[in-house]
């Protein structure tokens, strides 16, 4: 589990840094709600990995699948909503 948490943190760090730099380069503005949604996405993705890992260790494949599906879909949904919100807001402001 420790290894997975480390890898998740590493990927999150790389992805976060890249997104932050990209947003700055393109002058994309983020509102507080975007930060909140991104935090929820991170929680969902992290929770998904945590649940899948726990159930895999218990050899309960159906529970691992279900939790992966639920957390994965929720994370994707939140990511999609966040993406659209940022895109529309910045599109309106002409950026």
């Amino acid at each position: 589990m420790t290894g997975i948490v480390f890898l998740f943190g590493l990927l999150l760090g790389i992805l976060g840094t890249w997104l932050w730099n990209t947003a700055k380069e393109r002058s994309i503005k983020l509102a507080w709600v975007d930060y909140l949604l991104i935090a929820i996405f991170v929680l969902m993705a992290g929770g998904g990995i945590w649940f899948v890992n726990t159930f895999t260790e218990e050899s309960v494949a159906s529970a691992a699948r279900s939790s992966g599906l639920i957390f994965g879909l929720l994370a994707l949904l939140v990511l999609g909503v966040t993406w659209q919100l940022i895109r529309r807001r910045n599109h309106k402001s002409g950026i």
Partner: protein
Amino acid sequence: MDEKINRRDFVKGAGLASAATVATLMATASTVSAEELVNPGGKAMDEMGNASIKRDLPESFYKRIENKAGYIGTTRVVAPTQRLDAREHGFSQIVRRGSTGDWSGEPGDWGPILLAAVQEKKKHAAEISPLEAADYTWSNAFQIAMDRWHITLEPGRYQQAPIAATKVELSPEEMTARIKKICRWFGCEQVGICEVTEDMKPFFYSVGRTRGTYTTGHANYVDNGREIPWPYPYKYCIVMADKCDTDTLNALTGPLVEASAKIACSQSDFAPHYLESIIRSLGHDAKANIFSDTDIMDTPFAVKAGLGELGRSGLVISPWGAQMRIMEVFTNLPLVPDKPIDFGLQEFCKVCKKCADNCPASAISMDDEPSEVDTVVKSIRWFQDGKKCLAQRLAYGCSKCQGVCPWSKPDTLIHEVGRMVGQNPAFAPFLVKLDDFFYNRYPEGHATGEWAPWR
């Protein structure tokens, strides 16, 4: 080159080729590679010394309750009845009936019930595949291995350590702490102290057994019994519990469960004798209460020692679940008794019913509320038909009520959250739904082919 192959050579060649193919296939099927031979893999069981749970229950999991008259932990005792003769217990009946071939009795008595179970087992054995039959051959070997412990340790055969002339004197608090730490050190994951008081009298057998549990039967079986005195000569009962191997007990039925339970049952002879010798070597009297030489029904002692509560299934359910192997040592060592615990199990069992739903023998009550049940005491609990249960286990091997219990989960953070949620009666139905969703209401057991070390 225009050599013609005549019919005779063709048939001969085809025959030789077929024989070679069959021989290769057989050799492949019955041998292992050189690498597998040296290191075949496999894993250690989560049995004694292989800790699978935290050594101390986090206090957020339970509350300690005072011992009060008319209660053993959270279970209300209405009235005591007659103390039971241990020779009437199901395990003893299996040995006696199997040894003597006496299956007599009224319908509903042990004789006809056990005979039906034995016949069911034979019928089942005739119907299963050769591979499954081989699994039972292996699990039967584990049973014989367990039996050897149980007959070697039958009353009067074990050579107790002498009580040392010089006593190690410590305050009860200090002695309790050291004894508990020692028990955990040699592999028991939970330890509690129960004081032997008058209210525990009904849970002592009036007569104990004198023959060890030899499942396949003793020649010339006679058990004259041994009187168990009251007042009992020991003041405290040290109750130890160890979580059994979840992976293999989660096979839920069949030979893998059988083998796993037999290992746990054998190992539970070790810790009590070990602790008995330690205490006697410190100059204090002690007596191991082992499977073949037991004076008590251990569930109430485990409850009173604070290891868990009595659940719907009739098992001690600890916050770590129902897969606990319970072991005891009686002693006069100065100790501090523990208080029973309450982690909301009584309310949880009312809404869960998963053990009852999954019981293949329908031996567990489906009632919403517990009611007055007359066993060795009249108490307010859910009825569990011990005869149906034992017959099922004898015929097929079963650990379903232990395995499907939502509390029987590994010690991981997710389940710690679940444990804290589940002890609140308001959230208990939610936790049951969640457990049903992730683990299924009727879970399938772990496959023998995947988990049995002999496959």
